[in-house]
């Protein structure tokens, strides 16, 4: 396996050469500052660009082209990481040396990918209004669908309440209320701005030579020099005087409990790896405290997990419980966090958690997309991706680190979605 990184004007290119995979995968990523002014437009753009191009002016024609490229896949999506809004497009193709026919699938795919990014179908210098309206309808349906999945809905609701006045409340797909004001014209302006100002990365992995890749990139992907946007962590916070408790009544069979915390630690802090391991001890693995003590010992739930957000430092614990068990489950969950503060966990638990993370880290490079995403995340946090260095950081975490970090965690908001008022 070999890694090549090269800057070509405004484009940062990373090539991972490996014979492990039967595919070639590539990602083109555009990042910008997360802002309410354009987040929804960008979410829409990620879909509009892959809906109609000059030579393939409908989804049907785009799909037929992908099928003829031996079932190539094309994706467009938006994501956020701290202060950044990231729009990425990706393709996966079969490496042509597995095909009986003699085709240059790589070049054909680059040419097609180029068209997706640079040659949208236009009318009067704007996107096709038919395409924009269709994607607005589809995005609106995505907002509405959140309500229909009550696990997701309750998690989102917790964040809405907890971060009511913070940037973090913005979803990667933006805000439904923005949709009406988006037009083919202002969307096209946003597209031009994105091509001009966004920080752009191209990442590619597969059995490829440097010459072949770089000559194709030079031919199809040109971006002018521009300032790099790299401020990632979102330190906006608020003082928690009292835990905010909100109960919402809906027609659900199972109550959904969500508890939000502020850890005050982000991916750039020295305490990030202790926090990561703490979260593993608490609620990621079968041996984690929540799973063992709340599910296995007390039979209070089927699913229970904790997650942390690297860019913001928020931690959320969520579980599905019987509505009559709310008080018991809530207290038992908080008790697990107290145990971490007091160091009431074994060295064995700590070792097992570290081993579990290192196992996860080692698996990253067995999946082409995971590998590219880890490389990209490495840029954002100025921490070049390497299995070894990540593993070392996890390995260096001590019991004292966990106890210290646990002290920093503040409970902020509890949101319970349940079928009747809880006393």
């Amino acid at each position, binding site marked *: 396996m070999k890694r090549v990184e090269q800057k070509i004007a405004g484009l940062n290119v990373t090539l991972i050469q490996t014979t*492990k995979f*039967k595919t070639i995968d590539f990602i083109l990523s555009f990042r910008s500052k997360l802002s309410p002014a354009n987040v929804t437009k960008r979410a829409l753009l990620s879909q509009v660009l892959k809906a109609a191009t000059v030579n393939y002016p409908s989804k049907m024609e785009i799909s*037929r082209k992908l099928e003829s*490229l*031996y*079932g190539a896949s094309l994706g467009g999506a938006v994501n956020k990481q701290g202060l950044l809004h990231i729009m990425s497009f990706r393709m996966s193709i079969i490496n042509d040396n597995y095909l009986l026919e003699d085709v240059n699938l790589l070049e054909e795919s680059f040419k097609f990918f180029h068209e997706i990014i640079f040659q949208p179908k236009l009318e009067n210098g704007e996107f096709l209004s038919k395409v924009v309206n269709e994607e607005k309808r589809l995005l609106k349906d995505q907002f509405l*669908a959140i309500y229909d999945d009550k696990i997701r809905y309750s998690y989102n609701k917790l964040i809405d309440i907890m971060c009511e006045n913070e940037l973090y409340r913005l979803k990667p797909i933006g805000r439904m209320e923005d949709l009406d004001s988006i037009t083919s014209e202002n969307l096209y302006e946003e597209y031009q701005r994105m091509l001009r100002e966004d920080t752009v990365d191209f990442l590619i992995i597969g059995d490829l030579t440097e010459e072949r890749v770089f000559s194709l990139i030079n031919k199809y992907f040109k971006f002018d020099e521009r300032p790099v946007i790299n401020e990632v962590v979102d330190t906006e916070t608020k003082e928690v005087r009292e835990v905010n408790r909100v109960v919402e009544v*809906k027609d659900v069979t199972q109550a959904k409990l969500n508890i939000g915390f502020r850890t005050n630690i982000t991916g750039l802090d020295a305490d990030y790896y202790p926090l990561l391991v703490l979260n593993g001890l608490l609620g990621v693995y079968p041996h984690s405290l929540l799973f063992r003590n709340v599910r296995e010992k007390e039979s209070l739930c089927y699913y229970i997990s904790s997650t942390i957000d690297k860019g913001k430092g928020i931690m959320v614990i969520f579980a*599905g419980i019987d509505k009559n068990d709310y008080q018991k489950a809530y207290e038992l969950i908080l008790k697990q966090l107290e145990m971490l503060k007091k160091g009431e966990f074994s060295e064995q638990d700590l070792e097992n958690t570290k*081993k579990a993370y290192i196992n996860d880290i080692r698996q990253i490079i067995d999946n082409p997309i995971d590998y590219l995403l880890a490389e990209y995340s490495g840029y954002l946090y100025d921490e070049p991706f390497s299995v070894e260095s990540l593993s070392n950081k996890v390995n260096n975490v001590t019991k004292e680190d966990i106890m210290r970090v646990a002290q920093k965690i503040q409970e902020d908001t509890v949101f319970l979605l349940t079928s009747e008022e809880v006393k």
Partner: protein
Amino acid sequence: MEKLVYDTLKETLYYEKLPNGLSVYLLPKKGFNKYYATFTTKYGSTDNTFIPIGQKDYITVPDGIAHFLEHKLFESEEGDAFLKFTEYAANPNAYTGFNRTSYLFSCTSYFEENLNLLLDFVQDPYFTDQNVEKEKNIIAQEISMYDDNPDWRLYFQTIQNMYHEHGVNVDIAGTKESIYKITKEMLYDCYNTFYHPANMLLFVVGDFDIEKTMELIRANQAKKQFPQFSGVERKYVFETNEVKEKESVIKMDIMTPKVAVGIKNHESKLQGKELMNFEIALEIIFNYLFSKSSSHYQYMIDNELINNTFGYEITLEYSYGFAMVYTDTNKPEEFKKYVIDVLLKAKDLKIPEEDFVRIKNKLLGSSLRALNSPEAIANNFARFQFNDMNFFEAIMAYEAITLADVEKALSFFDEKAITTNIILPK
């Protein structure tokens, strides 16, 4: 040990049937950090009526018992197998389907310890009255979770509309009533009958030494005693393709209605090559009718009958099978009418040669892509094998399929086999 070479795929598979009847398959993958193993029994939620091993009469056990058994198998007298895997830095899991139950782990170190552990915990049941009781509340919460999930309700009610008697019409986890009837004695009856090595398959993938790994498995199995195996006697239910209910409506607290149109299979005894060709033919037909490259998809998206949740799936197994086309939509009746119309006309479908070739290439490409993923191979392998098919041969079969094969599958499209399920906001 047999060696099976798939030249065009650049894969080699090793096979051995052990003296106790266990089928073992090893797939070396050079350069991968990850080891992945699945240990699968040909036993799922629908296998509720059977003759327990060593007995003479059929018994019927409560719904959800295969899934319950899967939860409980992780417990042993010395403790929780989940936790032991953790000590060896592995990631264990298990799942129960209609006709299979699979136990698995992935790891990047301690491969041999983990492989032994997988074989040992699955082959060491430990059920007590107390540990069986304790699990009931956890599974009740799992059932509640699915009750609140509209996509699951959409899928499941559609199957229930199709089947009169077949066990596929009961939720894999059972019901809150049925699981409370489960006892440790019933669990042992099911275990002893269906977890005999001769009814099981082990698949291991990763960058390991083939001979050493096979030897480890042989030695592990040689240490254990199993009764004589004379085949599993279970009752399969075969139904005609006539659905039980033509339509159903459920109300839930959702914003956007959901619709599924299901079509029930008439060829529920197919196995081996026949099943493989039938399955590929149906995949090609459904791709032609409903994939994003189809004119129907374009029509439905243009007319706001569907959104990005639209999809279809095909399930073909011994004794049951169906296809489903589903979406979230604000025009449930129009969607239903359109899809049923397409399905009825499909009886006389003629796929143009050009489209046929394009779709074949697409399916071949996506199957090749699946070979990147050890998990995808391991999770699918047992399903193919239990139906007398081979996962790798199936990939190569795409190239051999003809339009005549596709035409033979068109009798699938039959009016009496079609049902619709709609979920409406309350």
